[in-house]
């Protein structure tokens, strides 16, 4: 039986949902042996959340003040020392996991797989390349540790109700001091998180300005939706970078994605193709987004959004 280690992502207090998606991938690889490791300054509350996840057989906590800010250079040697006892090491394919896991793989001297979409066998995995325009199946030979990031949109988060044992571990890793955390600037919002929201309302260049985005925020709040944006809208300074959806932004899979004034560059479509229903509203009937939209309407978003709002119950 393989032993799988999932690296938890958290913000110091809460387990990120990407971890539950990672566990789903871990269970698909090996149903009976998934441990989660939490590296933190104070892992208590996060460990309890991790222990509740279905399919988890154990939670390991590594307490160290240096693990406060999630610095890849600090976390990687600790994970690498732990990983020697595991056959599979998984991290979410978020900016956290993408930054961290290649460092772990390099310390272990094994290649890494990025963005697992499908587990096709105990050692075979499918992943996207060329912005999702092709899929490649990769087999990891016997005896080589599987080190991989997991594409969250491809896996449903596992449920709760479990009570896996929690164990504190001491790791004798030497931690570097050449990298220092300065600050995290985050556009705190009361809206649902873009990566976990059931409904996402998204705007592009067609929205025209930062001020005009207010229309989308108001509409999203009516629906209880998160707000996303295309690269063009971020580049133009309408919204901050953490709202970007697409190949280099967030890859999301909401039940309903409503795109307003987004033309639909291939890099954007990569970020939404796992969405349940895609709605597109654009003035340009030739916009590529209509090629993948389930429901399309050629029209002016500034007229369409208020009209939809009037019809909402």
């Amino acid at each position, binding site marked *: 039986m393989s032993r799988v280690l999932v690296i938890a992502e958290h913000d110091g207090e809460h387990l990120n949902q990407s971890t539950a998606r990672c566990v789903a991938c871990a269970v698909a690889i090996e149903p009976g042996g998934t441990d989660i490791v939490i590296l933190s300054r104070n892992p208590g509350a996060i460990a309890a959340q991790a222990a509740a996840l279905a399919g988890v057989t154990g939670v390991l906590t590594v307490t160290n003040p240096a693990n406060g800010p999630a610095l890849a250079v600090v976390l990687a040697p600790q994970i690498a020392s732990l990983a020697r006892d595991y056959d599979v090491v998984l991290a979410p394919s978020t900016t956290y996991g993408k*930054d961290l896991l290649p460092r772990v793989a390099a*310390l272990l001297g094994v290649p890494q797989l990025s963005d697992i979409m499908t587990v096709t066998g105990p050692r075979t995995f499918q992943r996207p*390349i060329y912005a999702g325009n092709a899929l490649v199946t990769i087999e990891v030979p016997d005896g080589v540790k599987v080190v991989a990031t997991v594409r969250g949109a491809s896996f449903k988060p596992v449920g709760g109700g479990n009570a896996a044992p929690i164990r504190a571990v001491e790791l004798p890793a030497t931690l570097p001091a050449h990298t220092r*955390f300065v600050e995290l*600037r985050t556009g705190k919002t009361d809206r649902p998180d873009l990566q976990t929201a059931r409904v996402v309302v998204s705007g592009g260049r067609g929205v025209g300005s930062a001020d005009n985005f207010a229309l989308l925020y108001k509409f999203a709040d009516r629906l209880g939706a998160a707000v996303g944006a295309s690269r063009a809208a971020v580049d133009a300074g309408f919204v901050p970078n*953490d709202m970007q959806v697409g190949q280099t932004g967030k890859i999301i899979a909401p039940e309903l994605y409503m795109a307003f004034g987004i033309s639909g560059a291939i890099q954007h479509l990569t970020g939404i*193709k796992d969405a349940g229903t895609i709605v597109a509203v654009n003035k340009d009937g030739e916009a590529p987004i209509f090629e*993948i939209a389930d429901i399309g309407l050629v029209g002016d978003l500034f007229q369409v959004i208020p009209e939809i709002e009037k019809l909402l119950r």
Partner: protein
Amino acid sequence: MQKIIVCLKRVVDYNVRIRVKPDGSGVATDGLKMSINPFDEIALEEALRIRDRGLATEVVIVSIGPDDAQQQLRTGLAMGADRAILVQSTGELEPLAAARVLLKLVVREEPGLVLLGKQAIDDDCNQTGQMLATLWDRPQATFASKLELNGTVATVTREVDAGLEVLEVDLPAVVTSDLRLNEPRYVKLPDIMKAKKKPIEIVAIDSLGVDTSPVHRVTKYDTPPARIKGAMVKTVDELVGALRDRGVLA
């Protein structure tokens, strides 16, 4: 600092729509327009701006690839790089192997900074910079949207899922670029002429003593299932009706 190394990968141009070969043996790339990986081009632009502010004396560009990758190195030289190194390799390298090859050159050249794109737009791996930093035992700052140099320290703003994270790293370090770090310059004709005189050193990959044979086995390539084009509606009433029919709107 004396030197900045920028790593450039030759990739299918981002405007080209690739196709999987009908027999699933690979992606058809013959005859397609090739370019510098766009993220690497941003990395090069940043290096040139640092040099032109007087904070570095030389920008060296490095590529691992076939002979034809000299075209992309020439473009990099025309953008303003001082010299180029091509590590000749016909096969595809896994990111770990690429990092091991790059480490050999980094150790030889002793740069104060290594810049490269956060990912290549062909394999989308997003690994090489991090792996190079690890093997070199130096700091990394990935997904950079702002880079400030101050003596022996770099302050890097990173685009992360939660927003913008600021790190301070001791130099030398590896920094990988995100899209908003800068907007690369257009190459002008006189610069293309000048670039013809700049040196490209050719290094045979076998001479570096690195095992670059792939560890993972690629078994097949597939075309992803396409989303089927849905229905166009004419009015907002129809739109809301269709959403209610699907049960996604109350």
